[in-house]
């Protein structure tokens, strides 16, 4: 069992007293040099003692390289330059981070996390920091500093909750991304994210599911659904001339409850006679290039979607349930891989599956029996990247109303969690931003505390039995860590799983009943 304690849940989220360094032992595994190089980064292996595992260490000349990279990023990103200068240390963000609330580590306060980078920025890039370092808290760049960076910039899920409350809109996610990009350029890339990106380049998706295996999975799914309801719902792959290209997180192909969401999308397409296809080139909506702050890698991953859309000759692109993918899709795809003038301009490019489904629900094109979800009382977890980094529909805040409208259209029992834990004040699941890895399990268990507290309160006050989400990472993280707080894995559901439950297709026979 783990050598750390699961935080105690109090009636309301309690702001801990800041403690120095209680989480500085926690670091993710470092990426091997070959994985680094695949992403145009560098790495160095040191194997001094043959009896021990090799170490992946800082490359030669790392200090100059790091400072050069920082200068490069300051010149390329206005966000970074403005955020480095503007913080007044007002403290507005200090009690907003779920990792601080869950761990109590002072350096998990957003401003303290930013200051790990800002103190070095001040030392090398500002007058005051060059000549009066002590006065303004400027620090030399040392290996200890890099060590702290590696710990604490991997204890930020880039969820942007701090940025909502900052009077200057300083977004720690931007700072974390810059720090990770700098570290990747001196040999300190993160194994989890960087290996996954490598898999996307070589195989096509985060999970490393090759084309053939994917085809088999989809075939199996068709059989399963037909066995269940006696309707031949299709899961098409690489169908040229289809109207819609669906890009979805690869977790949707086999993880629970993700796969039930995928079945939901397929049933909606089936019920509305929509021509659609998945693609083996773009068999991944997720884009970990976002997490490591790399424009180039994010663009390279995004280009697969453009390539698939062109090759298949589709008219539209629809995204499945994935939080950070939707941020990249909604906010960046047009920038990275656009313009999409070859697609049908009458639809949003790209469109979210919730936008698609709600439209069909509102038009009455789906035959829904809400009572089929009556065993559940639902609540909805706003995923951070959807809530604070994207939109849906045509009105600001559509990312909150549209998924809820979908749920309410297919379920009778729905309640929101506490107001300061939903919408743009939502708490991260604790596993976002490239931290969904076993080597950070302690952080993930502690980081879910604020969300778990709100969910427990919703359970006790309103009898909530299930929490729905539209993010593959949230779903994976919750099913893994909420059991530490007394929930079972099946209490986490996909939004389109609810749609799938309630929808009645033509000719459907429920064999289970």
């Amino acid at each position: 069992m783990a050598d750390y304690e699961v935080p105690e849940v109090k009636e309301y989220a309690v702001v801990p007293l800041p403690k120095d360094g209680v989480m500085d032992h926690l670091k993710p595994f470092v990426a091997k040099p070959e994985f680094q190089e695949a992403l145009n980064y560098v790495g160095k292996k040191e194997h001094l003692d043959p009896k021990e595992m090799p170490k992946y260490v800082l490359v030669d000349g790392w200090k100059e390289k790091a400072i050069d990279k920082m200068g490069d990023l300051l010149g390329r990103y206005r966000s970074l330059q403005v955020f480095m200068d503007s913080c007044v240390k007002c403290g507005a963000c200090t009690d907003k981070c779920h990792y601080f609330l869950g761990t109590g580590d002072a350096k998990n306060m957003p401003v303290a996390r930013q200051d790990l980078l800002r103190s070095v920025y001040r030392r090398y890039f500002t007058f005051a920091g060059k000549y009066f370092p002590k006065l303004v808290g400027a620090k030399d760049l040392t290996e200890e500093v890099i060590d702290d960076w590696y710990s604490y910039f991997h204890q930020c899920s880039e969820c942007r909750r701090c940025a909502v409350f900052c009077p200057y809109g300083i977004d720690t996610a931007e700072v974390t991304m810059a720090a990770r990009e700098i570290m990747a350029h001196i040999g300190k890339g993160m194994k989890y994210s960087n290996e996954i990106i490598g898999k996307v380049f070589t195989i096509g998706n985060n999970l490393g599911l090759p084309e053939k295996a994917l085809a088999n999975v989809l075939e199996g799914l068709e059989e399963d659904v037909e066995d269940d309801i006696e309707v031949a719902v299709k899961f098409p792959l690489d169908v040229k001339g289809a109207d819609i290209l669906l890009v979805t997180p690869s977790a949707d192909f086999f993880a629970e409850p993700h796969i039930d969401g995928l079945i939901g999308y397929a049933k909606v397409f089936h019920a509305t006679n929509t021509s659609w296809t998945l693609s083996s080139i773009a068999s991944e909506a997720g884009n970990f290039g976002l997490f490591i702050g790399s424009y180039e890698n994010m663009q390279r991953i995004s280009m697969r979607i453009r390539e698939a859309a062109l090759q298949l000759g589709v008219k539209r692109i629809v995204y499945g349930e994935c939080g950070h993918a939707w941020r990249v899709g909604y906010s960046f795809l047009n920038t990275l891989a656009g313009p999409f003038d070859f697609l049908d301009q009458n639809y949003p490019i790209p469109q979210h599956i919730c936008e698609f489904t709600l439209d069909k629900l509102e038009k009455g094109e789906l035959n829904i029996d809400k009572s089929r979800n009556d065993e559940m009382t639902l609540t909805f977890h706003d995923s951070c990247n959807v809530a604070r980094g994207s939109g849906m529909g045509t009105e600001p805040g559509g990312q909150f109303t549209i998924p809820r409208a979908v749920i309410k259209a297919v379920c009778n029992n729905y309640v929101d969690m506490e107001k300061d834990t939903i919408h743009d004040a939502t708490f991260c699941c604790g596993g976002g931003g490239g931290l969904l890895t076993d080597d950070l399990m302690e952080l993930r268990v502690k980081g879910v505390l604020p969300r778990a507290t709100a969910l427990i309160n919703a359970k006790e006050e309103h009898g909530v039995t299930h929490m729905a989400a539209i993010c593959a990472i949230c779903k994976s993280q919750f099913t893994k860590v909420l059991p530490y707080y007394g929930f079972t894995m099946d209490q986490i559901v996909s939004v389109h799983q609810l749609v799938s439950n309630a929808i009645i297709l033509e000719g459907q026979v429920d064999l289970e009943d």
Partner: protein
Amino acid sequence: MSTLIAVLLTLATLVMIVGLARKARQYHATPAPLKIPVTPAPKTTGGVVLRMAKEVILFASLFRASKWTWIFGWIFHVSLALAFIRHLRYVIDPEGPLGFMMPVIGLWIVQTAGKYAVLGMIFGLTGLLARRYFVARVRYISAPSDYLMLLLILSIALSGFVMSFITNVDIVAVKVFMLGILSFNLQELPEGTALAVHLVLVAILGFVLPISKLLHIPGVFYSPTRNQVDNPREKRHISEWAKKLDETRGDYPELQAARAPKEPEA
């Protein structure tokens, strides 16, 4: 003494203006390659102007974050603005190009509000200072400069308070002195410790402004998370350096492999 203070004020003003202009130019010239407004965000430019106004005038996000910090911070800034307006009468020549402003600045209500605003400044700054020291989280993130900055402005406010409410200053002579500086025609500064202290501290503030966290003044206007329009699907946003990447973005080996005709299966 007059000469020293005149030189200090002149240099400080130059440093402040040049420093802030350079910083604003840097922010302006640095691209924002991606759309990163914190959402929900306005979908129109007009909406962004409204959002920014709420931030700059009402400190809307800070209000959501922390009521105490908002009360102290907002009262301090509003009081500072009122005091600043009151002080314009010292540097505006009624016969000069900005003379048209004098009737407004000279209004009893403007002058009185500016006079009592010092109390708001002292209240706000003391509150911020207390919070910085007594709230453990805020103390943890504070560097010496964070305290010194508050103390500097507090000292400016206190020396101003002394002149307004305790001793008397020949304000007509002060105006002559200030207009003298502006026309490079040095005049005698009236005697008085509070006045000398006040002006020297203001000069220090001017020097410090462009090299300190007071850069939040231009920074707040350039923050991409607040000032961007949320329309990425409707309008392609692209920066200059990213345009260069677009030229080669289709050449990655896996994309070329995907384009190659598939070999028939054996």
